[in-house]
Structures are given as C-alpha cells and as structure tokens.
C-alpha cells in the first residue's frame, strides 16, 4: 500500500466513532497491560515464599475444581436439555423454564446457605435428630472440594442447559429423527448422535461455567478451598503485598491465555458444521409410564436442590431477621448503593458497546474484529485479576497526578482516584462489557448492514444513521443487554470486595460479610434482595425473548 492510499484510508475511516472505539479498547486493555508488565520487575522476598508454599497447591485445587465442575455441569445440563428437548412428560413445560431459575442464585449465597443448612445446628441435622437418628458428621461435610463442586454444579448448570437446549430444540431435529427412523435406541441416539452433535453447544456452556468458577471468590473462600483467586486475595489482604498479588495475577492471566489459545488450536482442526443456523426443529416424543415418572422425578430433584430448598431456607431465615435488617437505614443505603453502582456501570457498558459494535461492523475488517475481541476480553479474565489491574492502573495514575493534587491543595501525593467509587465502576465496566457487547452485537447481526447502507446513500452520516435507523431497530437487543449487565453487576462479589471504597457496602458484600461473621440469618435479607432482582430480570428477559420471536 503506497503513501497516498494510506492517507486516503486514514481520512476515510478516522471519524469520531473510530477514535472513541480505540479509546474504549485501550481502556479495557490498560489494566491488563499493567498486570502483564509486573512480570518484568524484580520480585520481593514474599514471592519466594508464595511460589514455594502456595502456588502448587492453589493451581492443583483450581484445576480440579474447574475439571470436576465442568464434567458435572455437562452431565446435569446436557441431560436435562436432552430430556426437555426430546421428550414430553408431566410438568415438562413448567420445568422447561423453571430449570433456568438457579441462575438467579449467586453461588456464594448458595454456598453459605447450604453450609449452614447441613451444619450440626442446621435444619437437616436437627430434623434427623428429632426423628431419633444420630447421623455421622462426615456425611454432611459440604465445606470441601466435593461440596464446592456440588454448589457450582447446581447453580451454574443452567448455562449448559440453556445453550444446549436451544441448540437441540432448533437445529438438530432432522438428525435425531433420522436416527430414530434408522432404528436406534434412545440411549444409543443420546450417546452416538446427540452428544457429538451438541459438542459445540456443550463446550460453549462449559466455557462460561469455567469462567465463573475461576472468577469465584465467595464459594472457595467460605468452603476453605485454595484457588488462584483466593490466593490473590490472601496476598493482598493477608500479606498486604500488592506487588506479589499482581505478579500472581499476571501468571494466572498467562495461564488463561495459554488455555484459550490451546483450545482454539485444538478446535481449529475439526469444526462441527452443525451450527449452520439452519432451522430444523425437534418434535418431542411422548414418554409413558415409568420413564415419564422418572423424567419428572429427575427434573424435580434438580429443581428442589438448586432453587426451592435454598431459597425456601433463605425465606425462613429472612422472616426471623426481617425487622432487624430490612427496616434499617443501613439496608436502604445498601440497596441504594447497589442500584446506583449497577446503573452507572450498565449505562457505561451499553454506551461503549454500542459505539464499538457499530464501528466494528462498519469497518468490517481485521481492525474491526480486533476491537470487538478486545471489548469482550474482560469476561474471560477473573474478577480478582481485573481488580488488581485496575488498582495498579489507578495508583499509577494517582502518582502521575500528584503534582496536580498538590496544586489543588490536597496534600502530598494523596490517593484520590484509587480510593474513589470510580475505580469499582471502571472495573465493573471492563468485567461485564462482554455481556452488553454481545447483546448489541447480536442485534446488529440480526438487522444486517443494509438498512444502515441505505441510510448512508440517502445522505445521512454515520452518527445520524445510527440514531435514526440502527438504534430503533436494535432496541430489543439493547434492552436485553441492559437487563443482563445490570444483574451481573448486582450479583458480583470479588470486584466489590476488592475495590470498594472504605465503608462502602453493596448488597452482595454485606450478605457475604454477614455470612462470614456467622450471622447467616441476617445475610438472608440482602441475599433474597439480590435473588429477587435477578429473578425479575430473568423473567423479564424471558418475556422479551418471547415477544421478539412472535
């Protein structure tokens, strides 16, 4: 490409949209770069201790946790998706949507709820004792690795279930019907046809589960499991050694990048063309007698364990403490804080998502793809890492701005930005950009570029085209993105724990604090508040999806 062409191309593409998009991408990347750079500085003496005594166990525990949870969610989510998609049995249409409800319960809330329910004074053991049964304590030891796997599986399987069910219901009818006509038994169809075909959908769901598990702090910490995220917390708050915490985060991030590259590499060779988007619905088959009863029973057991028991228990506890917790000024403040932070973060996420998604599709080249990829990177980076990156960035910024603060008379090198609420919001925006971005992007994908192109040819610039044509057409997707992002922020725990300003609490941090201080009953009210918000959003989103389809 010669020089005149280059100048022409720059003039052609350099507009406000591109500049803002590049700025947004830089904003996402800077904290991650700040972490990556830390590898190049000399480690301190703590680091030697950490590598010698901590890292190995932490890595192993993290890996086991992810592997076991991945396998268990695949089994539970995949099986339920297949049952619901391929068969008809009593209460099926109820279970079809009810089985996604556990998404409304953040795993850390489920963790302490189950932890107490199964303890010596919890409802399970007291009931058994009242029947005269003296059970062995070892049976109820949920505060362990298997316990954590149980919690993650029960409250994260909907990711696998929803993606796989949508795929099975819409896209593989012809394959399965063919297999039935060829005389295969249901079991052999499941093993030989359904599982291999839905591998991309299962993998998509399990990837989301893995990100959630890696990012988790609440469950692992409460159950005393040592994971990479808890290691970062310990180094930060236990040793007050931010340098080492950053270094840990850097290695952790490298591992994740490595695993993601490996996965890409492995998948490249065999692509499953099943997701061509061709619509081929599966018509469910009626089950009778014992098999129908078994199907209903299985769905009931999962729903009881993953939603009804824990939420019921929380409701009981909340009824005991409602007056002491809910009617205080403090609780009002918590709710206000949570909603305020979530609203600001969601607004920012949506604005940046819209800007970058629109730029990316208009560029329609490698730069556009790179921008899109950068914006969604935050979802695959655990919260604790993002927290450290944002903190390092803000401390560096404060150092740079020290002279400005001095001239404003704020004293010698104070920490202004890094003690402000802005830092937490910034981290939320990076972490949950993908949620908003994917919603906006799928909206754009649905309408295609032809409307925007017609508007351009009718003399409207990119900005006016966006407001007059694109925005009205992607309204539905935008609403979906807003709901999902808002809920993610409300539920979030590790970022809020690490980055909140002094004396600033949200519903999630307060619930977790109560639980940590053995005030489980008090934790019930803020927990239920979070679950209510999530439930409302899930139902709203569900409704929105129905309207869009009809």
């Amino acid at each position: 490409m010669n020089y005149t062409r280059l100048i022409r191309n720059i003039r052609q593409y350099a507009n406000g949209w591109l500049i803002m998009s590049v700025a947004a991408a830089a904003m996402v990347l800077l904290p991650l770069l700040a972490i990556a750079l830390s590898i190049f500085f000399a480690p301190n003496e703590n680091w030697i201790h950490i590598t010698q005594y901590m890292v190995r166990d932490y890595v192993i525990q993290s890996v086991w946790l992810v592997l076991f949870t991945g396998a268990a969610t695949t089994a539970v989510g995949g099986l339920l998706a297949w049952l619901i998609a391929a068969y008809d049995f009593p209460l099926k249409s109820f279970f079809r949507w009810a089985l996604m409800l556990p998404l409304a319960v953040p795993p850390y809330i489920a963790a302490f709820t189950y932890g107490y329910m199964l303890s010596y004074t919890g409802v399970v053991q007291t009931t058994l004792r009242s029947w005269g049964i003296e059970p062995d304590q070892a049976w109820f030891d949920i505060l362990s690795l298997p316990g954590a796997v149980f919690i993650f599986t029960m409250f994260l399987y909907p990711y696998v279930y929803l993606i796989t069910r949508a795929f099975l219901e819409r896209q593989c009818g012809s394959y399965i019907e063919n297999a039935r006509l060829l005389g295969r038994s249901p079991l052999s169809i499941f093993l030989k046809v359904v599982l291999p075909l839905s591998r991309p959908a299962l993998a998509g769901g399990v990837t989301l589960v893995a990100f959630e598990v890696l990012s988790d702090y609440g469950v692992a910490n409460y159950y005393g499991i040592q994971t990479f995220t808890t290691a970062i917390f310990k180094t930060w708050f236990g040793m007050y050694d931010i340098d080492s915490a950053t270094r840990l985060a850097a290695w952790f991030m490298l591992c994740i990048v490595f695993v993601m590259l490996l996965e890409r590499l492995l998948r490249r060779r065999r692509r499953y063309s099943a997701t061509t988007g061709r619509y081929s619905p599966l018509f469910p088959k009626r089950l009778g007698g014992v098999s129908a009863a078994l199907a209903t029973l299985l769905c009931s057991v999962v729903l009881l364990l993953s939603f009804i028991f824990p939420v019921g228990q929380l409701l009981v506890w909340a009824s005991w403490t409602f007056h002491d917790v809910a009617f205080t000024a403090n609780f009002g403040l918590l709710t206000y804080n949570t909603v305020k932070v979530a609203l600001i973060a969601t607004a920012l996420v949506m604005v940046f998502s819209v800007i970058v998604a629109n730029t990316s599709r208009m560029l329609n080249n490698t730069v556009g793809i790179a921008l899109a990829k950068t914006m969604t990177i935050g979802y695959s980076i655990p919260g604790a890492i993002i927290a450290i990156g944002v903190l390092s960035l803000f401390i560096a910024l404060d150092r740079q701005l020290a002279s400005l603060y001095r001239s404003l008379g704020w004293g010698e090198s104070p920490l202004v930005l890094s003690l402000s609420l802005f830092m937490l919001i910034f981290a939320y925006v990076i972490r949950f950009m993908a949620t908003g971005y994917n919603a906006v992007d799928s909206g754009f994908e649905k309408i295609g570029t032809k409307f925007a192109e017609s508007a351009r040819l009718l003399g409207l610039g990119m900005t006016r085209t966006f407001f007059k044509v694109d925005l009205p057409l992607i309204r539905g997707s935008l609403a979906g993105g807003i709901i999902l992002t808002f809920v993610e922020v409300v539920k979030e725990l590790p970022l809020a724990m690490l980055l909140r300003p002094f004396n600033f609490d949200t519903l999630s941090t307060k619930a977790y604090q109560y639980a940590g201080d053995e005030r489980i009953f008090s934790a019930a009210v803020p927990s239920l508040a979070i679950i209510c918000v999530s439930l409302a959003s899930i139902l709203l989103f569900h409704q929105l999806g129905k309207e869009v389809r009809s």
Partner: protein
Amino acid sequence: MSYVEIRDLCFFYFSAKTSVIDNFTFSMSKGEIVGILGESGSGKSTLLRLIAGLETPSGGRIRISDRTVVDEKTFVAPEKRGVGMVFQDYALFPHLTVAKNIAFGLHGLSRSERKSRVREMIELVKLTGMEERYPHELSGGQQQRVAVARALAPKPDILLLDEPFSNLDADLKGAIREELRIILKTAGITCLLVSHDPQDIEAICDRAIRIGTPVAR
C-alpha cells in the same frame, strides 16, 4: 465527456486469490439506462457497491458528473456521493411508514419542500393512498416502488438497481418491468441496473454490457 466514468477498477478481498473485479473500464452518458449482465459471483453487485462507496476499490478510479469520487487520493463517503441505490431486498426501514421512508433522504429540505417532494414521488410511483402504511403491509411490487421513490427523492446523479426483480413472482415480472421502465424514463434518471436475467435488461435498458466470465453463445 461521459457522465459516469470508471477506469481500471479493481477489487479483491485480502483472503481470496482471484480478484472479483479486474481492470474494469466503462462509461455512460447522462440519462442513459445501462444494464450489466453477469452470472452470480461475477462481481456485479460488488461493482454497484464500489460506485456507491460501500466498498473501497483496490485500484482504479470512478468519476460521477465530473467529480472524482474515488481514486488513489480521494474517497468520497457514500452519503456525499449523490448516488441512489435500490437494494436487492429493498431495505425499507421497517419502523417507518411509506411517506417517512421516502422523506428519509430529504433532511436538507424545508418541511413544505419535503412534503411536496414526497407527494411528487408518491405520484410518480403510483402509491397514492399508501403513505401511512408500513413496509410489511405492502406487496413485493409496491415495496420495490417505494424503494425506487426513496432512492430518487433526493435527486441523485445516478440510480443503481441491484437485481430489482429477484424477489418477485415470475408471473408478475412482466408488468412490473414495464412499470419500472416508465418510472425511470419519466424521472429521466441515469441508471445502472444489474441482473443475471437477460430478459430484465432487454425490457428496461438502452444498452447492455456483460461482466465476469463470458458465456459461449
């Protein structure tokens, strides 16, 4: 002097080995209706997109009405080219009525001018009484006429038509071709039409050229 002049136009995708358009040279005079005939994949839609400014050529230049719109140094954005285009599936804005679709490109005019131009266009394409309908409430032929009216309303220098009949039933094609020819002639517009069907071009165009791999006769 030609009204539209295309010289040595090239276009290829970075990933592809062969070029979609290779050293294409062509000119047309004012008021002419020219048809471009080609098989699918011969790059005829790409040619329209290059003229409209929706794609950037890999080489060559395009002049419209004595103004260079793209060459090595220049790139005029699509909204500033004065090119009207009717897309294959019309791309009528689903959230706007017929009248609002037609008025969409008239944002530079005053309210009364806009109103009279919309009325003029509605009469030209014979859609009186349909102003307040939404695109999905129209037949395929009516949608096409709205798309033509919308593209003509801002008085472009040239109108591009991309496979204008591919979405219509075969038995309606004859009548609709004739209607379109009358509309275009009445408007006196310079028009470039692309199709894979020689009959389309015969019915409407003054002159035809063929691009892509030549088909043996």
